């Protein structure tokens, strides 16, 4: 590749990377509170139920999402405690509302939710006992990391339209972005129980 072409390609890549930054920074927010003897997290802006996942749900199919919440001693620090929980989402075709079921030993379900409320309900059900926080339950700052992964991927694109290489290229170069849509991690802090 000639130097001017290489420079132009470099500028284009940097510009593309920069375009993604504001979105990522502005995406989500997490807050925590002590509810009884549990640490409860509230999250917004997860952007879980959108695009392919939302289409999948609106076709009357369900989607399983695995959440993992980790309490960290620093932003990139060691895990203090962790909670994993799976949820099954579906979309009520007649009520036009989402339903969520927390799976596991003590299943719990809720329906008639908007997409954003369904996402928030999942995060709220990731509670961790305050006792598991150890010394961090006594006014020491900690960070919270929430990860989720959509387990049941929407089906591959219908290939009757032929192998659309342009679409494939977009998918290849937006791989990071699409993984964020289906497999995301975000961290917030510092929090204190007293706050």
């Amino acid at each position, binding site marked *: *590749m000639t130097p001017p072409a290489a420079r132009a390609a470099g500028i284009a890549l940097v510009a593309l990377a920069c375009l993604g930054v504001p979105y990522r920074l502005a995406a989500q927010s997490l807050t925590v509170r002590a509810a009884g003897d549990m640490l409860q997290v509230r999250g917004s802006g997860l952007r879980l139920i959108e695009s392919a996942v939302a289409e999948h749900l609106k076709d009357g199919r*369900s989607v399983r999402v695995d959440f993992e919440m980790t309490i960290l001693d620093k932003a990139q620090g060691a895990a203090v405690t962790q909670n994993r929980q799976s949820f099954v989402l579906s979309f009520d075709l007649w009520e036009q509302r989402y339903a969520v079921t927390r799976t596991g030993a003590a299943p719990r379900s809720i329906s008639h939710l908007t997409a954003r409320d369904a996402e928030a309900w999942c995060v709220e059900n990731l509670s961790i006992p305050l006792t598991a926080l150890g010394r961090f339950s006594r006014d020491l700052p900690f960070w919270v990391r929430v990860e989720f992964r959509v387990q049941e991927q929407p089906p591959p694109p219908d290939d009757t339209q032929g192998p659309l290489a*342009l679409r494939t290229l977009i998918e290849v170069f937006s791989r990071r972005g699409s993984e964020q849509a289906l497999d995301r991690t975000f961290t917030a802090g510092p929090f204190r129980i007293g706050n």
Partner: protein
Amino acid sequence: MRTLILLLLCTLGLPAAPTAAQTPEPADGTRVESADVLLFPTEQLSPGLRRDIEALAGKPLSRPDVTALARRIEEERPEVVVAVRIDARDNGEARVFFLVARISDDANLGTNINARYTVESVEIEGLDEHEISAPLRDRIKALVGTRLDPVEADAIVEKLKAERPGYNVVRRIERGTRRGQIRVVFKFTETEELRWIPFQKSRSKFVFHSENGWSGLHDIPMGSRVHRVTAGLAYDDNDTLVEEYSGARVRFETRQLGTERVGASLEASWLNNTWREPVLAALALDPSLTEPYRHRVSVDPMVTVAITRHLRATGGLSLSSLESLHQSPASQMASAVTGGLFFSQTWRPEHRTRQIVDAGYELRTSVDGFGSDFDYTRHFARARYEFRNRHNTVIAEVFGGGITGQPPLFERFTLGDSTTLRGWDKFELAPAGGNRVFHQSIEYRFHGAALFLDAGSVWDNGRERQLRASTGFGFHIEHFFATVAFPLDAPGEGATFMMGVRF
């Protein structure tokens, strides 16, 4: 208790709207004798809602009002679903029951909230239902009139896929004609392997070779399932031919000329050629080789006939104008008749196991009638076998070719790139390529990790032939790959690193 709830839900059907199978219900306007909430403590409902439910008694029956109250219960208590039953009394009045069940008490509802609804009809799209076996058809029909069973519906999808390989099958649910009823749709879409004539595979790639730098080809296809136009760009591609080239191409394809068994294509390309020093040096040393060119403009019309779904024959022309590198603007014509026979088939002997065989033979021979300045005939044959089982993949590939006469340089064979004799550098191995080639490769992949062994030789007829081999490892994750390869029996040759995307 839970059994009782499920029994009631199954018996009565959900949700409010009655099904035709149930006994006739009192007509709207019938006086309501009483209204009760069952299986749920009414004190957990708001006083206003309780009052409105109780107020139904003594009034004329209004189904919209009853349905609205059922929805209010669900909205107030989103962890439950509500079914309505309206019974006729002997005295001509009606009794209204709101049957309440927790979603989490029913596994199907927890899996999919639409399991509360009754299946009104089942439809099959994209395939004549008679192409499905009778037992499976009966199983599909058995869904009608019952509450949606998501597990059973998904099991049917898997059965349909197994019974009709070559199709993608997806299930979707739609609203039915009446509130509370749904339609289940099983949609079949043909995959490419069922087409008589496939479109040309994408050549798109961006590849880095530690000895030879970056190469790029990008195809952008646009069109429908029958016709397609592909715009292609090449950026310093040195990974394919003796020459390095950049430029553009346009290809039009149709795979239905009157019948799906006959297709045609027309490709035009405009390429600027550059030549590595080792290639020019090799050409200078061998006067029997044809001269290099700075521009290559080609037009390639072709007709394809599908003999079976897996066997295709092609015939066409390849017309190229080559502007001399050393004596521009003088140019030469390379005109050839092309023909080929190609076989491709995929087998799925069992779930998660797939075997793919691709094989082909191609002939290109110059024709005087189109003013060719080259006189040659080129034969090329290849076969590829791929076996996949869960995370294990084995790929075996072999090809060979020979050229007689004096071909243009783009027809000569090369080895030592990102797909052949990985670990060798084509510009050291045979800078000007050869008119004979043989290559075989075997590769094993587990998840994304790969191990491979390549062996082959490229030479000119009548000269010394030396078999080369290489091995290496790498990763293949969807479109991405990264490979480290080592030439074998080559003292002083180091490892070669290759990475990139093919899509």
